[in-house]
């Protein structure tokens, strides 16, 4: 119990806040009365840590008051949320709203449905659900009706047919909501009962509530469409124990769906799911070496003295941790090393120790020196061309964690603690690497970065840029948006910062909706060269507005910068503009904290400046007089099946 609690707290902690802030709920009231901005910081902190239902609702009330007085800052990230379900949706909706505002950083407009009215709310085109024009809909369907209606002696195929029908009914409801609203849909699945009845026959067939719901949950997960997501209530209930997940009294009294403990966990998890739709997971883990990847100090204890491998319990724990890191790497997360050591000594275990799971080839960047770790991490970020906010740093030494938190606060620094047997579960509970869909690009990313290193080498020896580009033998495939690509497109739309002209974010559901919207012409670019396949590297969304084609989104992976993809993309934009009879292409640059790189893109490409402000500029390009730009990229296929 205690260990699971401390894990929760470790992932919930706000790394950038000084630990000297006194945590006192009464202090919050005083801060609110005196309109002190420290209120916001402290309330966030308390919300992270609070586990008692009444405390969270009290924090919710304080936060609402602060919104009224203007002390609480307004967020630019709007979220129109609708919650419908088979139970009373208060206070669940209040908890969810509180977490979304405080932990998710959203400005939430909440609409919640009536008790057990979700089917008609979903079916009626004119219901409040649709009038609220939600971006996101949470559906908590009836658990009590998710059960087998026949007899225990029914043939198994009859039982399965009924369970599959329950799944199909839920999925069609989800589809209906998405089709009518265009919103992303989150569907809560079902708790498994905690009671013993019907005994050992529980899993012999699907007639028990336990096995029926388990089957339904599994099928829902397997069949969920791309624009929808499961809120895994089953897992959350199992995690706290089903005995603690149910509270029948609150059902009878006020139709509460879950025990108060589970209400909190489901509301928090929902915030996590909602945030992950628009935010990307971390991409890099930076690892310490001594007492992190092995026991002991390689510089003092030597190759034979360090603890790693199955010869000792501690060695086993470190080996298990390395195994977990290797799994993370196979999911596309990059591993880097940052250690205070002599380089030659530090690499020795990777080269020579037979029990090491991680090899040098698993590490994309290796820094062993005596510089401060904060500086090394900055250097790694530069070399990998990735933002610091995509980094997680792991160390057993709390002092190093503090230094990194202080000097590179963008990095999520996680202290591993003092017992290596907990390292793996700390890693697996840190919630920094969760992805909703695995794209093939993720799996290839490790290879891509290693190839990038080779390419950089080649670049440094090639003197003539054109000859270099020619030597890459690049081919590109341009394609209109396709359903199969929408996870990757949404991923790029939500994580690309540097080469991103407008930084318009869109959820997967919104991307999916673009496919059938005739007023949009959208396409993707894939690039290959002789070193390998870069995958889907650029996303362009254009809107036809009369005689103008307006470039709503133009983003590109920085891995392929200055290879001619920019020019090839513009050629295609002009081509589709011509096909749709547009006379000009209109491009907009919106300044963001990270996209200064493309500030001059449109003028470099020959656009004419139309209007400009401090934070944006609008350009236009005459389609009729445009001359195709030459590139070293062979275009294999163009969008909308053009030749």
């Amino acid at each position, binding site marked *: 119990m205690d260990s699971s609690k401390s894990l929760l707290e470790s992932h919930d902690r706000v790394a950038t806040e000084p630990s000297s802030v006194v945590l006192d*709920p*009464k202090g919050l*009231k005083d801060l*609110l009365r005196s309109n002190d901005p420290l209120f916001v910081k402290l309330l966030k902190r308390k919300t992270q840590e609070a586990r*008692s*239902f*009444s*405390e969270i*609702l*009290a924090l919710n*009330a*304080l936060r609402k*008051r602060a919104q009224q007085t203007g002390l609480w800052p307004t967020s630019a990230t709007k979220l129109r949320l609708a919650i419908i379900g088979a139970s009373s949706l*208060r*206070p669940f909706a*209040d908890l969810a709203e509180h977490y979304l505002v405080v932990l998710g950083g959203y400005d939430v407009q909440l609409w919640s449905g009536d008790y057990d009215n979700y089917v008609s709310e979903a079916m009626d085109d004119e219901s409040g659900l649709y009038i609220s024009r939600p971006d996101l809909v949470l559906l908590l369907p009836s658990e009590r009706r998710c059960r087998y209606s026949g007899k225990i002696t029914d043939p198994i195929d009859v039982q399965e047919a009924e369970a599959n029908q329950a799944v199909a009914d839920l999925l069609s409801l989800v589809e209906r909501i998405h089709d009518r609203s265009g919103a992303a849909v989150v569907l809560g699945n079902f708790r498994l009962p905690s009671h013993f009845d019907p005994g050992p026959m529980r899993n012999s067939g699907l007639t028990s509530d336990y096995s029926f719901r388990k089957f339904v949950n599994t099928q829902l997960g397997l069949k969920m469409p791309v624009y929808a997501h499961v809120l895994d209530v089953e897992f959350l209930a199992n995690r706290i124990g089903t005995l603690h997940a149910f509270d*029948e*009294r*609150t059902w*009878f*009294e*006020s139709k509460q769906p879950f025990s*108060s403990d589970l209400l909190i966990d489901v509301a928090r998890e929902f915030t996590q799911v909602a945030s992950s739709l628009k935010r990307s997971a971390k991409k890099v883990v930076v690892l310490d070496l001594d007492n992190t990847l092995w026991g002991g100090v390689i510089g003092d204890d030597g190759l034979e003295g360090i603890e790693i491998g199955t010869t000792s319990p501690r060695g086993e724990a470190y080996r298990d941790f390395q195994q977990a890191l290797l799994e993370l790497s196979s999911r596309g997360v990059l591993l880097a090393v940052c250690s205070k050591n002599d380089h030659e000594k530090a690499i020795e275990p990777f080269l020579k120790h037979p029990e090491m799971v991680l090899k040098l080839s698993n590490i994309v960047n290796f820094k062993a020196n005596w510089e401060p770790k904060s500086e090394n991490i900055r250097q790694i970020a530069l070399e990998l061309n990735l933002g610091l906010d995509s980094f997680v740093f792991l160390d057993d030494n709390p002092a190093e964690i503090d230094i990194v938190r202080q000097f590179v606060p963008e990095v999520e620094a996680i202290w591993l603690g003092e017992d290596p047997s907990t390292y793996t579960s700390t890693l697996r509970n840190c919630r920094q690497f969760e992805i909703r869909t695995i794209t093939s690009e993720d799996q290839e990313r490790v290879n891509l970065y290693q190839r990038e290193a080779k390419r950089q080498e080649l670049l440094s020896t090639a003197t003539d840029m054109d000859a270099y580009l020619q030597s890459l033998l690049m081919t590109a495939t341009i394609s209109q948006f396709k359903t199969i690509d929408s996870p990757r497109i949404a991923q790029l739309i939500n994580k690309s910062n540097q080469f991103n002209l407008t930084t318009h974010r869109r959820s997967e559901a919104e991307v999916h909706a673009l496919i059938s919207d005739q007023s949009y012409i959208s396409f993707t670019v894939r690039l290959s060269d002789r070193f390998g396949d870069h995958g889907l590297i650029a996303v362009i969304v254009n809107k036809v507005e009369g005689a103008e084609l307006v470039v709503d989104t133009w983003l590109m992976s920085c891995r392929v910068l200055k290879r001619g993809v920019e020019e090839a993309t513009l050629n295609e934009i002009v081509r589709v503009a011509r096909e749709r009879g547009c006379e000009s292409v209109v491009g907009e640059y919106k300044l963001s904290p990270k996209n200064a790189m493309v500030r001059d893109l449109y003028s470099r490409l020959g656009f004419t400046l139309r209007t400009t402000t401090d934070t944006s500029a609008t350009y236009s390009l005459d389609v009729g007089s445009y001359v195709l730009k030459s590139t070293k990229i062979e275009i294999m296929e163009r969008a909308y099946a053009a030749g």
Partner: protein
Amino acid sequence: MQQAEVFAGIQDVFDEIFLEKVVVTPELSAKDVEEWDSLFHISLILAIEEKFGIRFRVGEVEGTKNLGELANIIVNRLNDK
């Protein structure tokens, strides 16, 4: 445990969850306090249960008219232990 002690405990709970100071009395009920809506009510009952380590039975709280009656249930429950 006596009713006075129970009232002191309830006062602690009120101080925790209400923004404005509310002095608890046996006659006090939801209609006397602006902040005391259905949301606070759920919160209040859970906090009181936690504070005294008891659990109300289904419908029990609904049947009380004011804090005095609620305190009686708490006193009886604690003395039964």
